[in-house]
């Protein structure tokens, strides 16, 4: 079990309110991702759930029990830190077994659990090494192992992959997703990388300046962003967002159109522009279009082979049913 409820939780550092009161419920077994630009309060929120940061006001419940003033280790949660935070003076075996030793568990039982965890994380060959002798990916596995052995009601991940190189990050992302499928334990994952959020989450919580901008499934957020911020934050490359007469013509103060929802033609279309840089990825080509009069730059995605050169004239036509419309306050118009 691991249902986590935040009730009017807020945090201030001195006079600065970093998180105004917010409500959030994470259901048992959910994979929730807190995503937002750096400094948006996502890590602070996670640390408050962990108990490492005190609440300024509000309450946190885990499985219907108020844990607001319960110490971190008594909340039944396990945390994986960005810096791995392994104990450098202990072997991998000791690191993974440490929380169990603190619970005064029987040594035979500790050994058994450590081995099980190590096996599932491919760490059997490294059990007697110290963290300093491991690669980044292995260290992160040890940190995850240390979390798993405790059999927690929820896992908290604080940007666990940002210290890894790109290839390793993709691999670990899959491993963590696999782990979630297998264990069906609640996970809360903090990241600034919207790709991680989209690929891993059941539920994404988009934060900006301590405020929840939107909560929903990845495709919810992709198809129905509630405001301009979420529209711009979710999706890669970013959604093209612009205001002005062309937006008014389409019936809104601000218009958003994703790169993949724009038809491209060399001969005719709604908007005319000039090709800037074309990024050929093989399966897709991203074209940066300038001088459209809409925004500094419009990005469009086209599939298949099309050869465009820098400076070519190009025509763009938005797909009518894929246009996102926002009011002057940046809120979605139904």
């Amino acid at each position, binding site marked *: 079990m691991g249902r986590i409820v935040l009730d009017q939780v807020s945090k201030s550092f001195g006079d600065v309110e970093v998180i105004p009161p917010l409500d959030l419920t994470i259901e048992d077994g959910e994979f929730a991702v807190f995503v937002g630009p750096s400094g948006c309060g996502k890590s602070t929120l996670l640390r408050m759930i962990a*108990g*490492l940061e005190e609440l300024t006001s509000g309450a946190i419940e885990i499985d219907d029990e108020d844990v607001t003033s319960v110490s971190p280790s008594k909340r039944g*949660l396990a945390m994986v*830190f960005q810096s791995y935070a392994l*104990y450098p*003076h202990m072997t991998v075996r000791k690191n993974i077994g*440490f929380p169990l030793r603190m619970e005064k568990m029987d040594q035979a039982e500790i050994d058994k659990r450590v081995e099980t965890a190590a096996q599932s994380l491919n760490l059997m060959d490294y059990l007697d090494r110290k963290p300093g002798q491991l690669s980044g990916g292995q260290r992160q596995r040890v940190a995850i192992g*240390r979390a798993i052995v405790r059999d927690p009601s929820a896992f908290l991940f604080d940007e666990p992959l940002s210290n890894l190189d790109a290839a390793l990050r993709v691999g670990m992302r899959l491993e963590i997703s696999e782990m979630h499928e297998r264990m069906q334990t609640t996970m809360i994952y903090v990241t600034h990388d919207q790709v991680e959020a989209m690929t891993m989450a059941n539920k994404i919580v988009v934060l900006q300046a301590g405020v929840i901008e939107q909560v929903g499934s990845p495709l919810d957020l992709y198809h129905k962003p509630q405001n301009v911020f979420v529209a711009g934050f979710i999706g890669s490359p970013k959604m093209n967002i612009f205001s002005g007469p062309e937006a008014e013509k389409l019936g809104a103060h601000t218009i958003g159109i994703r790169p993949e929802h724009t038809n491209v033609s060399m001969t005719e279309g709604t908007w005319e522009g000039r090709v800037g840089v074309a990024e050929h990825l093989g399966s897709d080509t991203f074209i940066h279009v300038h001088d459209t009069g809409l925004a500094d730059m419009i990005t469009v995605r086209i599939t298949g082979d099309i050869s465009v050169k820098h400076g070519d004239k190009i025509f763009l036509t938005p797909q009518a049913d894929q246009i996102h419309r926002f009011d002057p306050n940046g809120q979605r118009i139904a």
Partner: protein
Amino acid sequence: MAIVAQSSKFSTYGRPILAWGVGLLFFFPIFWMVLTSFKTDADAVKPEHLLFFTPTLDNYLNMTENYDYWRFARNSVITAVSATVFTLFVGVPAAYAMAFNPSRATKDVLMWMLSTKMLPAAAVLYPMIFLAKGIGLYDTHILIITVLSLINLPIAIWMLFTYFKEIPKDIIEAGKMDGVNTWGEIKEILIPLAWGGIASTALLVFIFCWNEAYWTVRLTTIDAATLSKLIEGNRAPEGLFFGRLSAVSTAAVGPIVVLGWFCQKQLVQGLTFGAVK
């Protein structure tokens, strides 16, 4: 190119010569003292006997037979060891608290601690003597241990604080998540990780305690008198007996030099802790 050649010439010849020069300059007074300790009092003051003389052990025999060297040495060991232990006992938790749970007052507290070192000891000499006599602790181990601990605590806390600051906060927090209590954090995580820093702090505090003279000389007569008092006691109205004085000084410095020699690696490591990750 010329600059490179010059600097490399300096590093091949100049730097070692400079290093040896400075080293010998520092070493010479100690060497002189050791040498003098094997001279008679008469030889000690004659320049022609600076390097060439007939060595004698009289000064050392005199020291152990007439001056009860071992009692002073025992007092030095008792007070320095106890004061070091007590300083760490208070200093480690204090530095831990300030390094990992800082409050807005932490910086002020650190400054305030250091400011106590700015007070000239002479300013509180008489109050201290009256106080010590008033509560009946004059010339006792407990008084000397307390005084030595108190004068070394600020510097010990500062040193430990700097070492502890090097430990990533995440590791302490991971410990919190893993279920260690405050004592566990210190025992399981802090002490093993900051071992080098704690050891060099301990060594330095011990050296300071051992060599402390201002208070130990003035707050003791016989019972708790340390080696500093013994050295000081080798004055006579007729003048200084340089041979005897040197022997006592050598015997007082000896143990600490030997200890420092054995702990050299630890000490250097501790003092450069954090410079190289």
